[in-house]
């Protein structure tokens, strides 16, 4: 007996064929603790072996699931233990060889990105952290698939302002080293507050210390599906009804993610980790978070009311998703990357959306200042100021925030840059001309905030 109605079957088919429903990523988290060695070269050999062996079947297994279930799996990726936390034994100042080994391993198993060239320095910078951070520009300039992230703040530790100032210079240096490709290196570098240990999304994916040896984490997608549902509602449907519709849709999308996560874990013979309930846009027309907010009723993303619409969207997605999986994890909050979302790009181009509004939106979703092209001559102190503002929102509100800023070498506000593929294209945004230098140059650490008196 067919206990699923033909209408439900058609709905699923339409979601995939017309509304871009897909699983955004199946990310295999791999512990590389066993790769610790006395030299970067030895560590690289062990890492290559470890990653290629553990992920050998990742791509064919995902391709089979995709085919059999009819749900596209857009990306297959790998995250590893933050390299700096494994590199303590290395008597070296340069960890670039490890990044090169990660790149080769990613290429060998047929994936597009590998994350974990990372360090956690929210409270202090260790010797290995220092070596890793110093080598980030060279690592990102000489590899294609390696993603790097640095955690500079947490609610329990406060904000390491020295680390932020340093990361601003690292971002500038990375931009300069990849100048001929519109500073693409910076698109693979995220600075975090309250980094999570099980994020499947790039560029910030790492395999945390509290994880099993190898786990499967899945990131769902589906902005196009949510937009289609809202667009089909009458213009006078109230926001309670809108929230209800988003919840119902989110449940279905999340179930697809849960099914793929379970099946991938079973077939790979590893633990199932989490399902990340983030609506992640792509540059494809119709696969946009900005367009959801516009369907909800702001004329252009960035208009007054945008933060409200985003807050409602984000919350409803989680409520629906929470019924769909008992393994919620990762970032689980809508992504608003500018260059990867056609609606966001349009909003910036017509002047509706600026950096300050994006910062406000960060307060109610995850990774707010994401894939933002800035003028190449933006001072490092200004970059540091922007990053520290994002961190302050995260630290005070006990949530993850991050900044992925791209000061594009040789470009000025209003110019256009294109990185191609999933990274998309974006106009270079205006940045405040007022200086943050005195604040940033003070350095030190912003103490951890109080957990009560929360206004």
């Amino acid at each position: 007996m067919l206990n699923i109605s033909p209408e439900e079957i058609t709905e699923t088919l339409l979601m995939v064929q017309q509304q871009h429903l897909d699983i955004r990523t199946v990310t295999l988290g791999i512990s590389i603790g066993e790769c610790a060695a006395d030299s970067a070269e030895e560590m690289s050999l062990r890492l290559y072996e470890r990653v290629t062996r553990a992920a050998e079947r990742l791509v064919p297994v995902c391709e089979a699931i995709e085919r059999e279930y009819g749900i596209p799996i857009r990306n297959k990726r790998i995250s590893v233990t933050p390299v700096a936390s494994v590199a303590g034994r290395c008597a070296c100042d340069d960890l670039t060889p490890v990044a090169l080994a990660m790149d080769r391993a990613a290429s060998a198993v047929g994936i597009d990105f590998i994350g974990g060239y990372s360090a956690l320095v929210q409270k202090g910078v260790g010797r290995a952290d220092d070596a890793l951070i110093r080598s980030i520009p060279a690592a990102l300039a000489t590899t294609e698939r390696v993603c790097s992230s640095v955690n500079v703040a947490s609610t329990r530790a406060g904000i390491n302002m020295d680390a932020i100032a340093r990361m601003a210079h690292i971002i500038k240096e990375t931009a300069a080293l990849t100048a001929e490709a519109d500073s693409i290196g910076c698109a693979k570098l995220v600075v975090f507050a309250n980094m999570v240990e099980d994020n499947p999304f790039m560029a910030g994916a790492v395999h945390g210390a509290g994880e099993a040896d190898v786990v499967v984490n899945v990131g769902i997608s589906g902005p196009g599906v949510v937009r289609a549902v809202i667009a089909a509602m009458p213009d006078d449907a109230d926001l309670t009804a809108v929230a209800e519709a988003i919840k119902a849709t989110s449940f279905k999308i999340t179930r697809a993610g849960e099914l793929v996560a379970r099946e991938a874990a079973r077939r790979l013979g590893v633990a199932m980790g989490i399902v990340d309930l983030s609506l992640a846009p792509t540059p494809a027309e119709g696969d946009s978070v900005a367009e959801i907010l516009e369907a909800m009723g702001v004329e252009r993303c960035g208009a007054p009311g945008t933060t409200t619409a985003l807050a409602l969207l984000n919350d409803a997605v989680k409520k629906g998703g929470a019924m769909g999986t008992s393994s919620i994890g990762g970032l689980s909050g809508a992504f608003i990357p500018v260059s990867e979302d056609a609606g966001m790009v349009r909003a910036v181009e017509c002047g509706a959306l600026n950096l300050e509004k994006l910062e406000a939106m960060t307060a109610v979703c995850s990774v707010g200042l994401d894939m933002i092209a800035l003028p190449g001559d933006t001072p490092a102190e200004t970059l540091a100021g922007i990053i520290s503002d994002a961190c302050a929102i995260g630290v005070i509100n006990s949530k993850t925030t991050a900044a992925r800023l791209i000061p594009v070498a040789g470009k000025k506000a209003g110019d256009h840059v294109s990185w191609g593929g999933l990274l998309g294209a974006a106009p270079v945004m205006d940045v405040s001309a007022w200086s943050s230098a005195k604040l940033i140059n003070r350095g030190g650490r912003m103490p951890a905030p109080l957990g009560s008196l929360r206004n």
Partner: protein
Amino acid sequence: MKTRAVLSVLGEDRVGIVAGVSAVLAENGVNIEDIRQTILAGIFSMTMLVTVDEGTHPFETVQARLAEVAERLGMQITLQREDVFRFMHRV
């Protein structure tokens, strides 16, 4: 291993759709358990619940044979494991 799957056929109505599709299913050891079929404004829509015997006929092979008949008939044919619908549409 018997796998339950949903077969969806969509396209312009014409002679021989059910015959063409069910012949391929029979040749590949696929058992039809339920069929629902309608025609709306000339668009033929058929949903079947089937069982694929993966021991003798791998899922991938059945999908490939169906892709051939889809091309021949000019229809859109999708074969998906049944649990995807159960997961997405039932609490």
